């Protein structure tokens, strides 16, 4: 294990506990970042550099290129746009439908409240693979294959449990006097929700919105099943298809570039909203 410093110098040297902590921190950061960084590096290496053995960790200028990104072309921007559209709309829908439900479950004491909450909790545990068969039938019956409604509605649904649980716990923390005051002022419940409660819970809405957006962006199985027109694909499916596209030689460079591009929006979200994401995850899981 680690060597303990002699007592005379402990003031300037780090204590063994701290040293252990820092080793842990470095390992942790390395573990989390390594695959991403590796992908980033690969995406900028020339094909020759990628297939050089032993592996090149510090490429020189000749071994670097932006060609993989350029090769992805405008098509890829389109996938990003698709993903953004579907995720954004389903996030909005989820908040519009989920916030009133959460408020109702937090405050209005409807009979069967606990049963509804229990069901919502259970439903959030269902793997999507159990759902796609039934949904596929509906999609076919209604004729909305290759229509983003076929993604937006399921995405809204799979995010509703989390949205409702998180928002409910936020609503419960609001001081009740404010709502009473609004009632005295003459707001009815819906107007109160719209003009008083929701404006005060914007931080919570942002929190849940971010989580919803991430889940929708990342969803794979529905996107794979219900959307078959290539130009309508979302990022996860489009990237996965690049991986399985060519039979003879797997295009590692373009895959890496696609991975990087497809994950950049999420990395940005995490960087900007780290605190809120943590808050949302814990509120959703622990308070429920």
């Amino acid at each position, binding site marked *: 294990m680690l060597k303990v410093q002699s007592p005379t110098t402990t003031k300037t040297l780090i204590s063994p506990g701290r040293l252990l*902590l820092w080793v842990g921190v470095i390992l*942790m*950061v390395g573990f*989390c*970042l390594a695959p991403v960084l*590796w*992908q980033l590096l690969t995406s900028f290496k020339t094909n020759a550099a990628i*297939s050089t053995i*032993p*592996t090149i960790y510090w490429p020189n200028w000749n071994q670097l290129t932006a060609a993989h990104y350029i090769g992805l072309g405008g098509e890829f921007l389109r996938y990003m746009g698709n993903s953004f559209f579907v995720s954004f709309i389903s996030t909005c829908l989820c908040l519009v439908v989920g916030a*009133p*439900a959460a*408020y*109702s479950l937090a405050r*209005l*004491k*409807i*009979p069967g409240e606990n049963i*509804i909450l229990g*069901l*919502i909790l259970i439903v959030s*545990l*269902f*793997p*999507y*693979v*159990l*759902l*796609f*068969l*039934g*949904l*596929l039938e*509906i999609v076919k019956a209604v004729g909305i294959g290759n229509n983003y409604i076929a993604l937006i509605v*399921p995405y809204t*649904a799979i995010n509703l449990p989390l949205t*409702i649980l998180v928002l409910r716990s936020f609503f419960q923390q609001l001081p009740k006097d404010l709502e009473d005051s609004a009632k005295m002022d003459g707001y009815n419940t819906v107007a109160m929700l719209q003009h008083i409660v929701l404006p005060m819970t914007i931080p919570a809405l942002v929190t849940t919105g971010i989580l919803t957006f*991430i889940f929708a*962006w*990342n969803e*794979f*199985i529905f996107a794979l*099943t219900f959307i078959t027109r290539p130009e309508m694909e979302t990022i*996860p499916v489009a*990237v*996965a298809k690049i*991986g399985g596209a060519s039979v003879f030689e797997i295009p*590692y460079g373009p*895959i*890496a570039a696609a991975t990087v591009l497809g*994950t950049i929006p*999420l*990395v940005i979200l*995490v960087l900007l909203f*780290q605190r809120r*994401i943590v808050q949302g*995850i*814990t509120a959703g*899981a*622990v308070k429920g």
Partner: protein
Amino acid sequence: MTQDTLRQRDQRTGWFLVIPALLILLLVFAYPILRAFWLSLFTQNLGTQLQAEFTGLTNYGRLVGDSRFWQSLGNTTIFTVLSIIVELVIGLAFALILNQTFRGRGLVRTITLIPWALPTAVMGLAWAWIFNDQFGVVNDLLLRLGILETGITWLGEPTRAMFALIFADVWKTTPFIAILLLAGLQSIPKDLYEAHAIDGASPVQSFWQITLPLIAPQILIALLFRFAQSFGIFDLVQVMTGGGPAGATETVSIYIYAMVRRYLDFGYGAALVVVTFLILVVAIALTAFLLARARINVSGER
């Protein structure tokens, strides 16, 4: 009764506000499951020209003798159990680290969130590249460290393919567990440790006697969520191994998906859905039961 009209009005509004959400949930969650129960009683595949023919429990009979199903169930179980155990251990370590105060903790916490946020399907490709036979960085590192003499096949060999899957899954979901456990750690009052230290307990003893019992609820919640997700794992496997080699990493969901999409056997696919659903429900009920017990224990101790 007129006395009650105000409350009734509130309740009516309450229902009005939940109903849209309930309808969407019912449509997307309840209908497909119920539908699967119904459909599983029919044979509907290429053999019947995709027409549904009522055949009772035939599909279930076929399922009992379907060794591919049992293998996929076994694979799923191995995957779930191993990945969850490793994730819990590493996640706890992460949480303990993040619970310390050190410079740059905010940044470190942000970094640990990244794996959780990235699309599994996309990162699955990254992992496939990392575990690549020829140019994979794993082989290269092991060679450089002298652990291997020549590069080995990872995704083409049953055990190692499973290992790679578990490794990738651990990477992806440990942050989630770490965050949940961190919330648990942060809710433990500091003076508990101080009192324990004054009693002469070492930090290791404190960990076993205070930390673990007090975050037991969070551990169980994490377990519950992760169990359900892990049991239904689809995208990672689909992208990394596709269930191969030779079905060695085929999970239940991959099998169900193939049954429906590739073999177009809807009736049997529905039966698979039903059985998987029931297994899950039983397992979740068991965990939830333990969770309720643990909560009582913890509050009883205080």
